[in-house]
């Protein structure tokens, strides 16, 4: 009881700091757990380790629940190429670095595998918190994680069986196949049946979901897989709609509870290796953090994502996975790697996980976007324009406007900061300038000062101010998300179309039609 209390209190402090400093909570949880261990406040280490295993199984299960293939949104080829190339290059790089550090072949293989995959746990949590799960890059990342997790599990099984030769490899293949079959049966038949039968029996439903989890963990052990792999497959097995949604609702407080317990417990058993090894940790972590974003950004953009999306996806998955710990642990148990190397893997994982929330920010993505090479001749307008219409910002509605207004005979020039979007629309024959809406030169390239109408969809008031300066006489429309920005926009003599208000108007028309104008 005292262990649970201490871990919870440490977690409560972490949440408090996180709220106060507006920083992500996971690193703070690990830090507070480490503080507990500094004061040796976790006497029953065995129990803490049990909680750790329990929490890990549960959290991997929940993370797996987010990895429903349907969420990827169809672009399987992109996912495949990004996932595989990143995995191979990072894994290969990790292997090479480890060999050059003199780790030995077997150990280097483990380190390579540990470095190759990204953390479903951390990334899915961030996507959910930031409500970015269904942005295009969120979907891409979801797919990549699903693919890589499966890859790690298969390879992990192979590493166990490697000593047994061909039969071992066949056994591993068989085990994975059996798991896949179980996932298919559970996702297609068992889970929907259970939901249908016990829809209003929350207690039974909760226990049945956990029974599925237990069954998969048991199955994994039978097939000589790590139990966490079972938990992952169980999560995928109940991910499809509507079971996934119901399960998430049911399990949300358990997830919060185990998140707090797991990460503090993890911090509490963490061992910081000596300085020499710290250097190795830094090299490996740096490799992951620097190479991943570049690699992913390049591959994803080539596969047709916008440059912005590609960069954001790359930044978001620049860390090692919870499976890295399992890979390390398994290697340790089998005698493939030493305690020292396990500590290095663990620390690289912690370090890269901790850094993720800070490097995957909007600001850094925007900075990196500026470093992106320019699309060919993107800053030069084809010919001078007069009395034309300028569309600044080509998201979903900006794009539709560009197409529709051009179709109906207006002379339209558009501008956007995303090089991939710009190249694509240019290829389709539209006149598009590449540049930042806050940058005077890019704006001038659109012939702004001679424009009659300007439509700004970037939603930022600073942009409006500059645009109004450059085009004092044009009629400016601003499509704005945030109601708070409306007065400032109107001060600049800009006509505002508020997204939410537009949707509400639309809704009220439907509502009055359906229910009559006055309440019953």
């Amino acid at each position, binding site marked *: 009881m005292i262990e649970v209390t201490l871990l919870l209190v440490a977690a409560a402090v972490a949440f408090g700091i996180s709220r106060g400093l507006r920083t992500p909570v996971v690193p703070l949880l690990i830090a507070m757990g480490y503080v507990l261990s500094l004061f040796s406040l976790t006497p029953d280490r065995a129990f803490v380790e*049990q909680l750790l295993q329990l929490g890990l199984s549960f959290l991997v299960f929940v993370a797996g629940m987010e990895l429903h293939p349907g969420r990827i949104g169809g672009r399987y080829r992109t996912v495949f190429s990004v996932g595989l190339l990143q995995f191979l290059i990072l894994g290969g790089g990790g292997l090479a670095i480890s060999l050059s550090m003199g780790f030995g072949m077997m150990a280097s293989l483990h380190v390579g595998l540990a470095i190759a995959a990204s953390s479903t746990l951390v990334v899915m949590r961030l996507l959910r918190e930031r*409500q970015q799960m269904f942005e295009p890059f969120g979907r891409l990342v979801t797919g990549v994680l699903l693919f890589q997790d499966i890859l790690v599990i298969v390879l992990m099984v192979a590493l166990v069986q490697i000593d047994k030769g061909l039969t071992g490899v066949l056994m591993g293949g068989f085990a994975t196949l059996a798991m896949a079959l179980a996932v298919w049966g559970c996702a297609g038949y068992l889970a929907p049946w259970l939901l249908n039968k016990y829809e209003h029996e929350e207690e039974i439903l909760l226990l049945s979901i956990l029974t599925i989890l237990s069954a998969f963990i*048991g199955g994994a052990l039978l097939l000589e897989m790590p139990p966490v792999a079972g938990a992952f497959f169980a999560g995928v097995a109940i991910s499809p709609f509507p079971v996934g949604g119901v399960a998430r609702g049911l399990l949300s407080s358990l997830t919060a509870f185990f998140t707090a317990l797991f990460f503090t417990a993890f911090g509490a058993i963490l061992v910081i290796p000596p300085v020499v090894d710290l250097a190795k940790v830094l090299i490996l972590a740096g490799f992951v953090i620097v190479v991943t974003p570049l690699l992913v950004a390049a591959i994803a953009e080539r596969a047709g994502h916008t440059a912005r999306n590609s960069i954001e996806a790359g930044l978001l998955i620049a860390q090692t996975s919870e499976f890295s710990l399992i890979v390390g642990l398994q290697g340790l148990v089998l005698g493939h790697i030493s305690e020292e190397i396990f500590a290095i893997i663990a620390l690289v994982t912690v370090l890269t996980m901790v850094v993720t929330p800070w490097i995957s920010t909007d600001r850094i993505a925007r900075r990196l976007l500026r470093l992106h090479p320019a699309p060919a001749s993107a800053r030069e307008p084809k010919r001078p324009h007069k009395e034309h219409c300028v569309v600044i910002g080509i998201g979903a509605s900006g794009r539709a406007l560009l197409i529709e207004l051009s179709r109906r005979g207006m002379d339209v020039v558009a501008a956007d900061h995303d090089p991939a979007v710009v190249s694509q629309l240019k290829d389709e024959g539209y006149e598009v300038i590449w540049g930042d809406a806050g940058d005077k030169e890019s704006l001038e390239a659109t012939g702004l000062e001679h424009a009659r109408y300007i439509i700004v969809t970037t939603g930022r008031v600073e942009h409006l101010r500059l645009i109004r300066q450059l085009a004092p006489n044009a009629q400016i429309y601003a499509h704005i998300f945030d109601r708070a920005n409306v007065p400032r926009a109107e001060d600049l003599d800009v006509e505002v179309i508020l997204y939410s208000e537009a949707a509400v108007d639309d809704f009220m028309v439907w509502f009055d039609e359906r229910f009559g104008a006055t309440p019953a």
Partner: protein
Amino acid sequence: MPAQQFVLTLGIMVSVAALVAMTARRLNMPSIIAYIVAGLVLGPVTGLVAVDHSIEVIAEVGIVLLLFLVGLELSLHKVKDVGMVAIVTGALQMAVTLMVFFGLSVGLGFSVVESVVLGVAMMFSSTVVVVKLLDQSKNLDSLFGRISVGVLLVQDLAVIVALTFVAAMGRGGEELALAELMTQLGMALLGMGALLALAFVCVRYFLRKPFAWMSRSREGMFIWSLALCFIFVLLAEGLQLSVEIGAFLAGLCLAQMPYNHELQRQVHPLTNLFIAIFFVSLGVQMELAAAFGNAGVVITLILLTLIGKPVLLYLLVLKQGYARRTAFMTGITLGQISEFGFIFMALAIGTGLADETLMSVVAMVGLVTISVSAVVYGKRNELYDWLDERGWLGKEVEADRNEATPEAPISNHVIIVGMNDMGRAIARRLNDEGHRVLAVDTDLEKLRDLPCETLMGHAENLAVLHEAGLERAKLIISALRIEEANKSLTYRACRAGVPISVHGFERQVTAELSELGADHLLIPKDAAYAIQISRFENQGVLK
């Protein structure tokens, strides 16, 4: 136990519990029985699972959470309301039960010491069972529910005295040191007073502001609340009080806060899981074999518990001016012995006051009375009517204190989930037009300045939709930007036959939502686009 084994053991316990619970559901049996049966299967029958320290801790966490939940449900004034009746009823009930069982045991040929031990083991009702039953039937808040919980808490204080008693008797069976007993009782009451005072001070001066500050983070607030709960539990243990009392008081502290309903919903699933493990481990640890040799004793004790206790409680509560129904329900609810009886017996064996036979007798009586009372509780209304028709409940006297009549549930309203800019705008607009609007969000801040009714909660949670009265709503609207939540809301609305309008924030989402049966889609970007085009058309820029 290695970590892997621990996870596997819990998995087995949960799985068997789930399977038995499904069968029990079909037979209309309460889940408590299912869990205990699952435990019997895993322990005494097959020996698959053994309960070690870690499992015990998990089970204890279950008890803590359950009592925390009770505290959350009952605010301070609701407890004060039944304070007197609980103390009087609890004290008299325990005294009478102890005497009757003591006399009976002596009559059945047990020694005086054994009879005292048996009497003590029989006099408590089971907090965990009762609270679980009340919670499942949503009766925690009812008058008889509150009286029952009050009686149980009074019993919890007596538990401390009982434990001292065993320890004292065990020290050589000399004259019972009355002075020592009284000191212990005094200490317990003092500790209770101190903890109560602490709770009061916390509520009054310390908790409100920090928790209001934290309330924007749903997860953070949940962890804070749990931390508070476990701190109180440790304090209670430090003051030699039971963990139940600590958890209950922590719950009471937070019951005063505006978001206590959401907190209850969050604690609930966690409790359900851990308490299931508690009941399973209870079953695992049962030693019943020796009880069969003492069938006569066992049956007598069972009958007395099942019938005698409810009758006694009925009379006690009735005499204090409550309605017959309230008195009857209180009695029925408390008609079993406590799992504490087992712990008590184990201690008694340890100090040489009782033997294994007595232990298994108590275990058997516990198993049967807990199971039967759970079934009887499920049929309490039918039983009341049946007895009333035969006139066995006596004449209805004018009751001084009655159940408050519940408010009529909200209906023909519009539920709006997600108080972002769009959600708020719709809420305002519909409210201005005179519709009854219920706004739902996880963030209390966002609900604060709305003109309509509000509900704090996570809309993916079925309990929240239930509380929002989805089945009776005219329309539900989701302004959320979360695909999964929108899909599950659409699904739920269609199952409930309520029209739904959903935020389709991205093209990939909209097709799926329509397929699921959404009646209307809120698509801000399309709406803004349409407005832009129509402005140009109105200006004559576009033809």
